[in-house]
C-alpha cells in the first residue's frame, strides 16, 4: 500500500481526509481532491493522457485517460483526470471497455497526423508517439483526406508546424491561461482548429518558449535549436537557471561542445514546469565567440598549471611583504556556493583577510537581510501561488524575477489579490493594483505608514496566507528592515506572514549566508591602499557594481590584478593574470535562491570550443588530438582547490561545507533535479543603515532598473536574445516631461552621481512622478541597479549632430 503525501494540506489549512481506493487490484491512499489519474500515477500505472498536465490541470477534452469505475454513484467509463478519488472506489485501467476506447481515441487523434516521424523535430521526445503506442493504436483505418494548414512565422524563438497538431489545447492553455499571453490562442472550430497568432509575428509573451515544452508533439519546436541535434544525441543534465535569483529548474542540452538548448525542468516549489524566455534562450554566453578560454599572464598565453603557480607565489609574496590585508579575494553572486566557500578557505590557507563575496556592497547588505532576518519566514514561489494576498514592494517582476510574475498570475487566477508599490510602470500578466510611489515615497510608506500603510497592514492581518514580496534593489537595507517589522507584526500564532525577497544574482542568498560579519566592502578595502593583489573570481565590479570609476581609480594602487571568469568582461581583458573558468552548465555545484533553497546543478557539457567553430562551418576537423581545443577552462571551485592543493570530490566538499556552516546541514543530501531543501533559519544580523540623502531642489529621483533582457551579464552575452533587447531610454512621467519642456523622442542629458548620459526621453504615464527611470542593459554600464537612492538633474540634450 502506498501513501501519497498531502502536499496541499499545509497551504489550505484545512484538515483533509485520505480516501483509500483500489486501482488494478492495487490499493493506495491519497489526499482528498486528488484524481484517479494522479492516484494511478503514484502507483506507477500509466494511464495515457494529453490534455491533463501537472501544472495546467485537467480539462477533460482529449478523452484519452478513460478508465472504468466499478463502484460509487456513477459507475462506468470515466475520464481519470476528472474524477476525484473516493473512499472504497474500485477502478480498472486495462478492462476491455476502457482499453478499446483509449485505442479509438488514439486512432482519432492520429487521423490527420502526418507520417513524418523520421524527419520530425520532436523525434525522440514525442509524447504523442509514446501515448499513441500506450493507447494501443497502430494501423490507421481512416483513408479520407487529411487536414493541412499553412504555418505562421512566430518569430525567432518558436517554430510552428501545424500539420502535426493533435488539438490537445495545451499550448493555448499554457500561453493564455497560465502565462497570461494575449497574442496567441485557438481559432476556428471542428477538426480545423488552429493554434497560433492572429497574424504572423514574434510571440510577445516573455514566456513564449514554454510552448516548446508543453506541446506533446512537433508543432511548436525551439527554432534556435532546430536542425542542430537529435534529442537522444544531446548531453543533458538537471541544472539551475543562472539568470536571476529565482533558481528555476532547467535541463540544458549540449552537443559537440556547444550548449544548444535549454528546457524547463520541474520544481513544484519553485518554477513548476515553466521557465522564462530569458532563461531558455539566453544560454549563448557559454559558447560566446569571445569567451576567454586560455590562461594568460600579461600578454602571454600560459597553461593553467603555470598560472596557478604564479598566482600562489603572488599571494604568498603579498602576504609576506604587506600582511593579510594585501590580498583581496573577491567572490561573486553568480559563482557557486562551493566557489565562494572555497574562497574563504583559500584566504585561511594563505593567511589573508576574509574575502569579499560580492562586489556590490549594498546588494550584499540586502541579501544578508534576506538570508538572516527573513530566514524564518521565507516564502517559496509555491507559497506565492497559493497565497490570497501578495503585497509587492519595489519589484518589477518581469524584469527581476520573471517566474514570480507567473506565480502572481496563478494566485490571481485563484481569486487572490496583488497590490504593487513601485515607481516603475510595472506590467504583469494578471490583474493587480499598482501605486506608483517614488523610491523615497516607498521608504516613507514602509517606515511611517500613514493611512495607506495602516490599510495595508490591516489587509495583511486579515489575509489567510499573506506574502510580502520585497525588492532588495529598490528598497535597500532600510526598506527591507521596515518590511521585516511589517511581516512580524502581521504574523500570529496560527499563521506567519511570509516574505519573498527578490535578490539580484543566482547565488546572492548563498554569498550572503556564507559571508562573515567581519567582511568589509570592496571599495573600503581597495581605497585603504593596502591591497596589493586583487583576485576577482567570476565577477567584474565594473559591470556588476556601482562606482566603477572609484574601483578603476583604486586599481591603480594594486600591483597584481588576477581575474578568473568565463565571460569576456572588460576586467578579464585587463587582468595581469587570467585563469579561465566554467559557467554553471560546465560545472557541478549549488546556488541558493531567493527563498533560501539549496539548488544543485550538475555538469551538462565539458568546456571546449564547439565543433561548429573549430570546423568553421565545414565538416569538423579530422585532425585527432588528445587536447580539446578551448578545453582549458576549469570550474572555479577546482581552480581554487588546486591552488590550495586540496582536491576533493564534490560530496566530500559538501560534507566539509555542512560541518563548517550549520545552516547548510542539508547540503550533502540534495541531488540535482530535486526540489532542494531550505537552509536552516538564523538569527538576525545587525546591518548599518544609512539615512536617505536630502533631495536637492530641481532634481529627480534616479531609478535604475534591470531591463527584462540584457541586464544580467549572462543575457548580455547571449546572441539569441538580441531580438528582445531594447535601447536605453530615459523614462519620465508625462507631467515631468511637460514641465521640463521636453518631448517624447528628444534627447536629454541626465547628470547622475555615476556620470552624465545623453539619452532619448520617453514618456511613461504609469510611472511615479518626480522620478527618472533608466533601464540597465549595458548601454550605460555605470548605471547599476541597487545602488541606493540618488538624485539627478535633467536638461535638454539638444539636437543630434
Amino acid at each position, binding site marked *: 500500500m502506498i501513501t501519497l503525501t498531502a502536499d496541499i494540506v499545509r497551504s489550505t489549512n484545512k484538515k483533509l481526509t485520505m480516501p483509500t481506493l483500489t486501482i488494478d487490484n492495487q490499493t493506495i491512499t491519497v489526499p482528498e481532491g486528488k484524481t484517479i489519474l494522479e492516484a494511478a500515477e503514484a502507483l506507477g500505472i500509466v494511464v495515457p493522457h494529453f490534455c491533463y498536465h501537472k501544472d495546467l490541470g485537467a480539462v477533460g477534452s482529449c478523452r*484519452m485517460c478513460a478508465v472504468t469505475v466499478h463502484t460509487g454513484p456513477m459507475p462506468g467509463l470515466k475520464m481519470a483526470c476528472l474524477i476525484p478519488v473516493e473512499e472504497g472506489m474500485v477502478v480498472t485501467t486495462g478492462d476491455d471497455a476502457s482499453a478499446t476506447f483509449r485505442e479509438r481515441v488514439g486512432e482519432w487523434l492520429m487521423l490527420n497526423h502526418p507520417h513524418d516521424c523520421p524527419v520530425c523535430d520532436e523525434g525522440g521526445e514525442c509524447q504523442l508517439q509514446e501515448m499513441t503506442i500506450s493507447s494501443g493504436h497502430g494501423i490507421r483505418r*481512416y483513408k479520407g483526406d487529411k487536414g493541412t494548414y499553412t504555418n505562421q512565422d512566430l518569430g525567432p524563438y518558436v517554430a510552428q508546424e501545424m500539420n502535426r497538431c493533435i488539438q490537445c489545447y495545451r499550448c493555448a492553455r499554457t500561453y493564455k491561461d497560465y502565462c497570461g499571453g494575449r497574442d496567441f*490562442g485557438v481559432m476556428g472550430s471542428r477538426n480545423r482548429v488552429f493554434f497560433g497568432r492572429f497574424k504572423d509575428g514574434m510571440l510577445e509573451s516573455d514566456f513564449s518558449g514554454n510552448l516548446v515544452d508543453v506541446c506533446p508533439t512537433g508543432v511548436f519546436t525551439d527554432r534556435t535549436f532546430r536542425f542542430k541535434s537529435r534529442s537522444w544525441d544531446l548531453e543533458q543534465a538537471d541544472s539551475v537557471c543562472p539568470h536571476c535569483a529565482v533558481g528555476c529548474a532547467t535541463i540544458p542540452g549540449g552537443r559537440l561542445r556547444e550548449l544548444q538548448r535549454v528546457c524547463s525542468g520541474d520544481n513544484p516549489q519553485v518554477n513548476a514546469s515553466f521557465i522564462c524566455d530569458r532563461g531558455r534562450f539566453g544560454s549563448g554566453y557559454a559558447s560566446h565567440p569571445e569567451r576567454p578560454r586560455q590562461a594568460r599572464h600579461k600578454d602571454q598565453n600560459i597553461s593553467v598549471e603555470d598560472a596557478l603557480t604564479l598566482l600562489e607565489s603572488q599571494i604568498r609574496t603579498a602576504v609576506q611583504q604587506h600582511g593579510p590585508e594585501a590580498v583581496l579575494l573577491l567572490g561573486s553572486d553568480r559563482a557557486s556556493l562551493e566557489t565562494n566557500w572555497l574562497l574563504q578557505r583559500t584566504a585561511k590557507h594563505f593567511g589573508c583577510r576574509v574575502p569579499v563575496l560580492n562586489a556590490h556592497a549594498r546588494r550584499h547588505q540586502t541579501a544578508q537581510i534576506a538570508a538572516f532576518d527573513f530566514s524564518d519566514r521565507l516564502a517559496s514561489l509555491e507559497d506565492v501561488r497559493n497565497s490570497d494576498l501578495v503585497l509587492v514592494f519595489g519589484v518589477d517582476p518581469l524584469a527581476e524575477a520573471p517566474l514570480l510574475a507567473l506565480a502572481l498570475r496563478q494566485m490571481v487566477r485563484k481569486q487572490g489579490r496583488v497590490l504593487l508599490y513601485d515607481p516603475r510602470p510595472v506590467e504583469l500578466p494578471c490583474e493587480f493594483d499598482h501605486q506608483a510611489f517614488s523610491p523615497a515615497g516607498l521608504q516613507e510608506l514602509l517606515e511611517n505608514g500613514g493611512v495607506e500603510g495602516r490599510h495595508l497592514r490591516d489587509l495583511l492581518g486579515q489575509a489567510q496566507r499573506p506574502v510580502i514580496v520585497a525588492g532588495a534593489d529598490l528598497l535597500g537595507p532600510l526598506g527591507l528592515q521596515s518590511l521585516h517589522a511589517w511581516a512580524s507584526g502581521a504574523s500570529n500564532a496560527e499563521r506567519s506572514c511570509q516574505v519573498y525577497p527578490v535578490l539580484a544574482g543566482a547565488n546572492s542568498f548563498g554569498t550572503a549566508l556564507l559571508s562573515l560579519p567581519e567582511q568589509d566592502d570592496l571599495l573600503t578595502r581597495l581605497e585603504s591602499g593596502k591591497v596589493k593583489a586583487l583576485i576577482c573570481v567570476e565577477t567584474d565590479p565594473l559591470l556588476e557594481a556601482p562606482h566603477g570609476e572609484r574601483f578603476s581609480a583604486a586599481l591603480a594602487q594594486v600591483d597584481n590584478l588576477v581575474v578568473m571568469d568565463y565571460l569576456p568582461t572588460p576586467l578579464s581583458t585587463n587582468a595581469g593574470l587570467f585563469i579561465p573558468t566554467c559557467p554553471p552548465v560546465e560545472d557541478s555545484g549549488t546556488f541558493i535562491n531567493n527563498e533560501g533553497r539549496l539548488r544543485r546543478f550538475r555538469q551538462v557539457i565539458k568546456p571546449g570550443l564547439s565543433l561548429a567553430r573549430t570546423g568553421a562551418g565545414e565538416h569538423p576537423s579530422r585532425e585527432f588530438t588528445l587536447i580539446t581545443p578551448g578545453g582549458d577552462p576549469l570550474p572555479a571551485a577546482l581552480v581554487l582547490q588546486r591552488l590550495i592543493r586540496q582536491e576533493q570530490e564534490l560530496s566530500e566538499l559538501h560534507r566539509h561545507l555542512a560541518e563548517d556552516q550549520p545552516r547548510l546541514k542539508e547540503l550533502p543530501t540534495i541531488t540535482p533535479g530535486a526540489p532542494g531543501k531550505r537552509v536552516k533559519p538564523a538569527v538576525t544580523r545587525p546591518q548599518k543603515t544609512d539615512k536617505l540623502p536630502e533631495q536637492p531642489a530641481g532634481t529627480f529621483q534616479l531609478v535604475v532598473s534591470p531591463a527584462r533582457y540584457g541586464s544580467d551579464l549572462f543575457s548580455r552575452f547571449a546572441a539569441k536574445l538580441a531580438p528582445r533587447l531594447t535601447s536605453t531610454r530615459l523614462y519620465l512621467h508625462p507631467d515631468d516631461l511637460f514641465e521640463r519642456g521636453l518631448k517624447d523622442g528628444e534627447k536629454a542629458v541626465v547628470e547622475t552621481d555615476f556620470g552624465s548620459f545623453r539619452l532619448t526621453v520617453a514618456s511613461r504615464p504609469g510611472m511615479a512622478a518626480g522620478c527618472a527611470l533608466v533601464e540597465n542593459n549595458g548601454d550605460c554600464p555605470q548605471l547599476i541597479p541597487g545602488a541606493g537612492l540618488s538624485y539627478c538633474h535633467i536638461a535638454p540634450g539638444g539636437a543630434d549632430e
Partner: protein
Amino acid sequence: MSQTTQLLFKNRKPGETIFLKEFSANGGYQGLKTAVGTMTPEEVRELVKASALRGRGGAGFPTGVKWGFFPADKPGTKYLVCNCDEMEPGTYKDGVLLQADPHQLIEGMILSAFALQTQVGYIFIRYAYEKQAENLRRAITEATEAGYLGKNILGSGFDFELHVHGSAGRYILGEETALLNGLEGIRPNPRLKPPFPAVRGLFGQPTTVNNVETLANIPHIVTGGAQWFKDLALTPDGSGTKLFGLSGHLNCTECFELPVGITLHEVINKYGQGMWKNKQFKACLPGGASTPYLTREHMGVPLDFASLEQVGSRFGTAGVTAFDEDTCMVAVTLNLIAFFARESCGWCTPCRDGLTMVRWLLETLESGKGTREHLEMLKDQLANISGKSFCALAEGAMGPVAGLLNHFEQEIVDHIDRGHCPFNK
C-alpha cells in the same frame, strides 16, 4: 388548426406578430400578476415542480427539478438565461412562437425570474432570428413601459432587467455552458460540469438556462394550475402541450401546438396531412436531427419522453422530419453527420475527430465502396462515441447513426452488396 387547448399559440395569427395590447386583452400577464401578487417565489417553484413540466429544448430535464438546484434564496447576483439559439436541423418552433407572440416568452421569463429571484436575464438568440430579436426588443420595451419589467415590478419590490443577446451563429452555442461562454464573450467551448451553472454559471454566478418554450409555459401553469397542465397531456406521466414543427416529405409542414403523448400516426397523417406525392412513410426524426429514427412500426407510439425512450429514440424538440419510401437513409444520416461534424466546436476528440471518421465511413458506404468491415467500424464508432464525449453534441450526432444501425442495417448491406446506392436509379 389543432383542436387541442392552445396555450402558446392561442394568439397566433398567420403572418402577424401580436404585441402587448392584444396579448394583454387575451389574458396576457395574468400569470405574472397572480404570481407576484399572491404567491411566494417558493410556491411558484413548487407549482412548476408539481406540473411535471419537462425542458422543451431537447434534453427534457424536469424544469422543477432543475430549479430545485438553483440557490434562489441565496443573496447575490444570479442570472436567468433563455436559450433561444435554435439551431437543431428540423426544429423551428421557438422561431415561430417568437414571430407570433413574443410576450409569451417575456412574461414567462419575468415570472421565472421571480420564482428564481434573479435580477438579470438574457435571451440568447440565434443569429438568423433577426425578426424575432426585433420582436423581443419591442416587447421588452412595451413590458418595461407597462411596469412588468424593471424596478419594483407591479409594486412587489422585485426587480428584473432583460437583455437580448445575438448568437455568433454556431450549433454548439445551444449547449448551455457553451452558450454561457458565448454570452461572456469568450470562445464557446462547453464547460466542465461540475460545477453546474446553478452553482457557477454566467460570470461565475448562479445561473439557470431554460428553453424559450419551457419559459413560455410557466405563466400558463400559474394561471391554470399544475394538475390542469398535467392533464393536457395524453400520457399519464406526460404533461402539457408541445410545439411540433413538421418538416420533410409531408403534405403540410407547419408548426402545431399539440398535446404531449399524441401518436406519431396522428401527427403524420392528421396534421402533416400524410406523405407527399402519395408515397409511403418510411421513417422520421421525432425530435430534431439528434434523435434516432422512428419507422413505420412506431406509428402508434405516443410522442412523449418516456415512451420514445422505450423504443430507443428521444422526444427531443418535437421537430418531426419525415422521410418517404424513396429516401436513402444512409444518405440522410450522412447529411446529418456532415452537419454535426461541421458544427463540432473542436474541443474533445470523439466529437472533433470521431465524427470526421464517422462521416468518412458513411461517405464510403453511401458511395458503394464500403465493405462489411466498414459497417463493423461504424458500429464500433457508435459504441465508442455515444456517451463518451465532453458534451452532448457528439452523442446527439450519433442518434441518427444509432437509428440507422437499429432499423436500416439491411439498407447499408444493400449498398455494400450492390456497390452503389440502391436509391440512385
